[in-house]
C-alpha cells in the first residue's frame, strides 16, 4: 500500500479501517542467501539495500525482541556529519545525503528536520579549536561555520549568555544540514520497504549460536530453529561482544549504558540541536514539544538497560547551567540503551575473523545518524564479500595495523 495525502484523507473519512499491516510476520525458512542478526536500524537498512541494490537475494532479518527495541528506539536522534577525519566525513555525509531523500525513497515520513546544530565553544581557546574543526570539516567537503556570540544568541536566545556563567558562551560550531528524525519511523520505514521487496523480518527470535562447518559460518541457531545462510551479518550494537563470543571472536568493544531524558511538552523554545561539550549536555525539541536531552556515557561498563545516578546528575546539572530557563521543567521519562564503544569511537564494518560472518557494530553513542550509510555499506559487504571504498577504513584490521580513526579524541564524541 502506498502512503499519500490522498490515502490519509480517504481513510479519515472511512474511519481508518482501510489500513493494512506494514510488514508480514513470516515463519523462518530453512535457508537464505543472507541472514542479518538484529532488527535495529542498521540491520533493517542493510536488508533494504540488499534487496533494493543487490537483489534478487533471499534475505532475512532475525530480531530477538521487536523492531527498533534496541538503541534505535532509545536514541536522541541527532543526525550530523561534523566529524574530523576525512574517512568519517565520507561515511557520515553519505548518511546525511541518504537521509535527505529517505522519506520519499521509502514512502514513509521519517520526519527528517534539518534544523541545524550548535556545538558551543566556551573560551577563546575553544574558539580556536572550533575554527580548526570547521576548517577540517570544510576541507573534507561538507558544511560547517564558526559563529560568534551574537549569532548564537540570535539563533538560540534561551542559552546562558551571562558572562558570569560557569562556561560563558564565546561562539559555536554550526552545521546547518544537521538535524533530527523520528527514530521509530526510520526502523519502521526500512522494515516496510524491505518487506515489500521480499525480505523476511522475523521478530521474537533470538540468535543463540552459529552454524560453523569447516571453519566457515553457514547459518545461525535460533530460538525458532536453525536457519542456514550463505553469509551472516551481525548488527546487534551493545550485544556484539556477547554474540561474538558464541562465534569464537573477541572484539575491541566495551558495552556501556547511555542515558536520555525527555521533559513534559512545552511551547517551542529551541529551534536547533544545542550541544555543549563543556556542560556535558545537549538537547533539542521534539514536534510534540518535549525536550529530548542527552549527554555522555555512564562510567561503569554495563549491560543493565538503565542508567546510573552520577551521570543523571551531571547531564541535568549541566543542562540547567546551559539553558537556565529549563530548571523547572519536569522530566516525563528517562531511560538508557546499551551502546558498543570502540577504542577509537569509530564503527567496525567488514569481516569478523570467522569466514562467512560479517560485522556492523561499534557505533557506540552515535550510530543513529549512520543508519542509512551503515545499511548501504553493509549490504555491499554482504553481497560482494568485499569492502566498499567508504567502509574499507573501518575494517576490524585497523586495530592490528594501528590505523585508528580516533574520533573520540578528534571530534570529542558525545553521541
Amino acid at each position, binding site marked *: 500500500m502506498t502512503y499519500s495525502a490522498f490515502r490519509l484523507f480517504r481513510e479519515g473519512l472511512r474511519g481508518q479501517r482501510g489500513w493494512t499491516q506494514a510488514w508480514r510476520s513470516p515463519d523462518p525458512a530453512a535457508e537464505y542467501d543472507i541472514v542479518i542478526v538484529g532488527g535495529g536500524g542498521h540491520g533493517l537498512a542493510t536488508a533494504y539495500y540488499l534487496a533494493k541494490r543487490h537483489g534478487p537475494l533471499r534475505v532475512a532479518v532475525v530480531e530477538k525482541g521487536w523492531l527498533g527495541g534496541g538503541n534505535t528506539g532509545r536514541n536522541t536522534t541527532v543526525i550530523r556529519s561534523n566529524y574530523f577525519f576525512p574517512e568519517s566525513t565520507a561515511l557520515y555525509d553519505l548518511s546525511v545525503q541518504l537521509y535527505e531523500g529517505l522519506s520519499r525513497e521509502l514512502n514513509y515520513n521519517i520526519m527528517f528536520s534539518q534544523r541545524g546544530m550548535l556545538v558551543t565553544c566556551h573560551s577563546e581557546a575553544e574558539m580556536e579549536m572550533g575554527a580548526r574543526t570547521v576548517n577540517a570539516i570544510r576541507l573534507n567537503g561538507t558544511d560547517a561555520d564558526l559563529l560568534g556570540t551574537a549569532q548564537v544568541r540570535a539563533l538560540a536566545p534561551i542559552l546562558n549568555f551571562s558572562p558570569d556563567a560557569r562556561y560563558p558562551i564565546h561562539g559555536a560550531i554550526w552545521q546547518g544540514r544537521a538535524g533530527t528524525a523520528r527514530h521509530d519511523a526510520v526502523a519502521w520505514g526500512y522494515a516496510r520497504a524491505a518487506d515489500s521487496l521480499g525480505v523476511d523480518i522475523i521478530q521474537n527470535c533470538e540468535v543463540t549460536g552459529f552454524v560453523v562447518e569447516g571453519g566457515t559460518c553457514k547459518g545461525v541457531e535460533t530460538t525458532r530453529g536453525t536457519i542456514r545462510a550463505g553469509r551472516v551479518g551481525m548488527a546487534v550494537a551493545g550485544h556484539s561482544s556477547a554474540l561474538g563470543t558464541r562465534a569464537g571472536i573477541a572484539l575491541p568493544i*566495551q558495552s556501556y549504558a547511555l542515558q536520555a531524558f525527555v521533559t513534559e511538552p512545552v511551547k517551542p523554545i529551541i529551534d536547533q540541536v544545542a550541544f555543549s561539550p563543556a556542560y556535558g549536555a545537549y538537547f533539542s525539541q521534539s514536534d510534540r514539544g518535549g525536550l529530548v536531552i542527552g549527554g555522555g556515557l555512564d562510567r561503569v*561498563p554495563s549491560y543493565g538497560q538503565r542508567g*546510573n545516578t552520577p551521570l543523571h546528575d551531571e547531564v541535568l546539572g549541566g543542562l540547567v547551567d546551559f539553558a537556565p530557563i529549563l530548571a523547572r521543567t519536569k522530566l516525563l521519562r528517562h531511560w538508557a540503551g546499551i551502546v558498543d564503544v570502540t577504542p577509537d569511537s569509530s564503527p567496525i564494518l567488514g569481516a569478523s575473523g570467522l569466514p562467512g560472518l560479517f560485522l556492523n557494530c561499534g557505533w557506540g553513542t552515535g550510530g543513529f545518524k549512520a543508519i542509512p550509510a551503515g545499511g548501504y555499506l553493509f549490504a555491499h559487504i554482504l553481497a560482494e564479500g568485499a569492502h566498499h571504498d567508504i567502509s574499507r577504513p573501518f575494517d576490524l584490521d585497523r*586495530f592490528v595495523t594501528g590505523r585508528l580513526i580516533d574520533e573520540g579524541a578528534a571530534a570529542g564524541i558525545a553521541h
Partner: protein
Amino acid sequence: MQRFTCPFCGLRDEREFSFAGESGKTRPDTAAEVSDADWSAYLFTGTNPRGRTDEIWVHTPCQEYFRMIRDTVTMEVLETVPLRRDPS
C-alpha cells in the same frame, strides 16, 4: 548512587573509581619481538561479558589498582580484591 568497596579505603562513592580494564591480561614481553596481532589483542580486545565480570579498577583518592568482580547486568559488586598480596 552506588558505593564500591576499595580494598584499602572501604565503601566509597562510585564516582571516586575508574574502570581500567579486564583482569587476566598479561602485557607481552616488549623486550622480545611482539606480533602486531598479539599487541592488538593485549591493547584492545576483551570479552566484555554480559553477567559476571572480573575487572581492574582504580580508586582515585588512594591511587590503588584492585580487582573487582561484579555483575554487568544487576550491577551488584560481588568481591573486591587487592592486587598486592600484602595491602600494607
